[in-house]
């Protein structure tokens, strides 16, 4: 029997529309803003009718910003490149370190194992500001301030716990018998890890990697303090739009669109893994 | 007290015609009779039970208890006691309270209640866990408590859904006997739903074999074995299952010859006099048939089909022998201990009276024991 009446369908549709508007309207509005000049953006009352312009994007890409107060150089494309570099390398390093560690935590009981795992997770609880002052002092001493290596290192605070905990749950869901079967068949521990454990945990690894990438991409504070202009990612670089002659809303909007594009594309592409991975769906034989 | 249950042309369709779970089902259970609904999962037996209990509406047809239609009544007004497959014991009550809970409505004195609970616990061997809570006893004990809660009530009809699936193997035989005795002594009309033919055979007076929502046969356990209505019932009932061969039949007036397909030309030959004339006439029209023989009717001896022993297994009170005729496995069972070496040659003898002949088209039975159906 079909229980849904027309009324139910209409109400359900309306509610879904409401949720979509709530979440998607800001993005929609930003996209509109990125095609407008500061004047049309700031007119009162606001309107969705305007003459579109690509001037914001061209300014970002060429790096030349004309304002009423004169010309300004922008490092936006450099910032974007920095973001890509920092996020990718951080996640890659986290995966190399985190996946085997997650496997160890999932499969072996060793002394202080749970404590170490929890300590790693607790890095996520601490507000970044708490560690920033000592960290910046250390970095000065070590000569790591304003280096990619230094930033990637600090970004492990963001990526590693995430990967460790999500992937660990995934490894725990794989029946040990499956791995035993592969070892008894004549394969070493390392082969079993590579050919059985990692492929079976792949959805979880992909999801954790993606999330870590997004968190790394969105990070602001670490890069603000520990890097100067030429190493800064877009999140920090966007500050440059707050100029002496006012806030460049058009360019900010264009910069946001460009900077969320990679993560959005990644998220849409990997949506399936993300949902599967985060719901910790069991691996069934 | 015991009632007669009649199902008339009952249909159950789920989801706007998507699943036809029960098709035109009619059968009657006599007062005091134990009937088993037997079939594999998805055969419609559980839907049928739920319709009788009142948890499911009928798409078509009617259900009557003592001539009174009950299928429109809510479950509580049907006068039916039920034991659930999932036990459904009340977690905050002890086992004893769970069992006596069913007696609340009957306004009995507390002494009377205690005695009945004690008797039931003794019958089901749960006397030592009466004061425990369901979560602290084993699955088998929970199942027995759930069964006790259903049986202790006075009801016109008892519905038991897979009542013995979790029972400890060492207790099974004795409890089957005691429960059967209890049901008979109290004249309980009972419907038992199970996928386990051992349980159905042990407990039921009559078994309704279901498959694909359709009632295949409704008969006594003995009759299901001796006179199965079709090939499905023939192979479904019986452990080990019936041996089945595709055969070509030839009747030259003196002998009736069943050539087994793919056996390298071996055949079962019988004197024509072993078969009734009506059966021989009936077989004249047929060439390809399915021939069924129960493992107990395959005798290892000096004459018959030549076969090679694959496996010989003695289980304490019976011997199972699998042998092969050109790649086709034949199983025979004996109550004696028999030693047959693997790979040795044996001869399998089959009496004409033990043959079951089925149409190879729709599987309907044509003959049992050399007599036309």
């Amino acid at each position, binding site marked *: 029997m079909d229980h849904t009446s027309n009324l139910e369908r209409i109400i359900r549709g309306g509610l879904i529309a409401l949720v979509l508007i709530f979440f998607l309207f800001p993005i929609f509005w930003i996209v509109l803003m990125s095609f407008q000049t500061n004047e049309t953006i700031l007119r009162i009352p606001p309107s969705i009718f305007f003459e579109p312009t690509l001037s914001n994007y061209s300014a970002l890409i060429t790096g030349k910003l004309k304002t009423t107060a004169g010309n300004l150089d922008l490092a936006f494309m450099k910032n974007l490149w920095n973001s890509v570099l920092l996020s990718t390398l951080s996640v890659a390093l986290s995966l190399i370190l985190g996946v085997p560690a997650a496997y160890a935590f999932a499969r072996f009981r060793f002394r202080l194992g749970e404590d170490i795992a929890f300590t790693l997770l607790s890095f996520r609880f601490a507000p970044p500001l708490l560690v920033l002052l000592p960290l910046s002092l250390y970095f000065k001493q070590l000569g790591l301030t304003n280096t990619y290596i230094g930033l990637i290192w600090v970004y492990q605070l963001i990526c590693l716990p995430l990967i460790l905990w999500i992937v660990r749950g995934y490894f725990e869901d794989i*029946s040990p018998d499956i791995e035993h079967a592969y070892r008894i068949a004549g394969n070493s521990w390392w082969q079993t890890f590579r050919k059985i454990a990692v492929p079976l945990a792949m959805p979880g690894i992909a999801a954790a990697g993606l999330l870590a990438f997004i968190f790394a991409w969105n990070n602001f504070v670490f890069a603000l303090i520990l890097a100067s202009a030429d190493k800064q990612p877009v999140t920090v670089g966007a500050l440059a739009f707050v100029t002496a002659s006012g806030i460049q809303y058009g360019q900010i909007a264009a910069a946001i669109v460009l900077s969320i594009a990679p993560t959005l594309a990644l998220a849409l592409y990997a949506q399936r893994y993300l949902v599967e991975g985060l719901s910790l769906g069991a691996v069934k*034989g | 007290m015991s009632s007669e249950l009649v199902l008339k042309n009952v249909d159950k369709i789920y989801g706007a015609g998507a699943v036809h779970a029960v098709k035109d089902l009619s059968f009657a259970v006599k007062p005091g009779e134990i009937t088993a609904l037997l079939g594999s999962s998805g055969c419609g037996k559980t839907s049928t039970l739920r319709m009788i209990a009142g948890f499911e509406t009928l798409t078509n047809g009617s259900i009557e208890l003592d001539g009174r239609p009950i299928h429109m009544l809510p479950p509580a007004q049907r006068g039916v006691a039920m034991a659930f497959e999932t036990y459904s014991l009340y977690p905050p009550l002890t086992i004893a309270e769970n069992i006596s809970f069913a007696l609340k409505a009957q306004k009995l004195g507390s002494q009377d209640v205690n005695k009945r609970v004690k008797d039931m616990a003794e019958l089901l061997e749960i006397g030592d866990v009466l004061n425990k809570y369901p979560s602290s006893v084993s699955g088998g004990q929970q199942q027995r408590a759930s069964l006790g809660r259903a049986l202790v009530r006075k009801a016109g009809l008892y519905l038991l859904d897979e009542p013995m699936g979790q029972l400890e193997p060492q207790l099974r035989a004795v409890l089957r006997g005691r429960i059967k005795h209890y049901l008979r002594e109290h004249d309980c009309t009972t419907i038992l739903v199970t996928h386990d033919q051992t349980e159905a055979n042990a407990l039921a007076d009559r078994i309704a074999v279901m498959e694909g929502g359709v009632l295949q046969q409704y008969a006594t356990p003995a009759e299901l074995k001796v006179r199965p209505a079709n090939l499905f019932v023939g192979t479904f009932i019986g452990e080990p299952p019936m041996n089945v061969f595709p055969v070509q039949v030839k009747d030259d007036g003196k002998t009736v010859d069943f050539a087994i397909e793919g056996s390298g030309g071996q055949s079962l030959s019988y004197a024509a006099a072993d078969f009734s004339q009506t059966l021989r006439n009936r077989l004249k029209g047929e060439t390809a048939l399915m021939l069924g023989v129960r493992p107990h009717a395959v005798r290892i001896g000096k004459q018959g089909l030549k076969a090679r022993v694959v496996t010989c297994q003695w*289980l304490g*009170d019976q011997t199972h022998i699998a042998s092969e005729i050109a790649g086709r496995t034949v199983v025979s069972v004996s109550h004696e201990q028999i030693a047959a070496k693997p790979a040795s040659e044996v001869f399998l003898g089959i009496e004409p009276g033990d043959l079951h002949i089925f149409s190879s088209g729709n599987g309907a039975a044509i003959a049992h024991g050399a007599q036309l159906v």
Partner: protein
Amino acid sequence: MPHLELASISKAFKTNKVLADISLTADAGEIVVIFGPSGTGKTVLLRLIAGVEEPTSGTISIDSQDMADVAPEHRDVGMAFQNFALFPHLNAFENIASPLRARSQSDAQVKSGVGRVAKLLKIDHVLGHAPRQLSNGQKQRTALARALASSPKLLLLDDPLRNVDAKLRFEMRLELPRLLRQAKSTVLYVTQDYKEAMALADRIAVLAEGRFIQIATPADIYRNPATVGVARLFGDPTINLAETTIGADGSIELAGEKVAIDKSYGIFAGKNVSFGVRPEAVEVMNGRGAGLKAQVMAVTPLNERTVLLLQTKAGAELLASLPSSSASIPKAENEVTIAFNPAGTHLFDRETGAALARGRA
């Protein structure tokens, strides 16, 4: 020289003792069934032998070589798991091929090796399927094929028929002996179905509470159970047991009624025993002859046998099991006379449960 030798193995997880003082030898090509109720440590024992767990104490030797420092991949063992443990991301072919690939065989060798066992187990038509596309029976056959593929010298089968339905289980039970004979491996087979154990074993090792109580041939275990526990585990219906005291003439008392069984029981006169009688050794006569009188409480057919629940005049409950073909099957409520075939009777010590004697035919 035994192929496999376990010498006083014990295993504990933290303080939880699972196995204690397990010793067993198995000759090359022998099928030893490890039988016991669930939770007795059968699976743990197989894991120890496979090398994926380490014993707390004791030694495991294969071909006289101590396995303590040998990794599982070097023990030349094949194992089938109760939950099949197929690799979900590999198809049936690759699952079965995994032991061959690990021995770096050529593609042609792998193909012929997989083809051979797949044909033996009748799964050659589903080799391209992923495990989730296989039926339960096919999964179980794939898991067996994988264990057999590399023709290991030692085969560990952990209740491989547990998760398939009754018909398939029966079919496989008849098929397995030939398969195992062809594999020529030494086999340790774990099960909690006594029929499977009797059907497949050369010898059965009965495991209870972490110890072997009896290791013997199926016939010996059934006829001469070492303890009352073993007697209860073998046989369907279960052996009838009654607590009694032996009389001077070797007779027993059943709920107060004196029954003569076997004069040789007289040597235990005055002893407190558990008297056991197999249901198939309870003879039921319709006539009014002399003997123990009983009433038939219920008649419950069991396959080709009929089980009777009997109650003696004095109230003792007994099960009898007769071939359904026998002419004299009584009806419920009938009065019958019963006698015990001495060969199916046993005496056990009431305190320790150890077997004292068996009746003679």
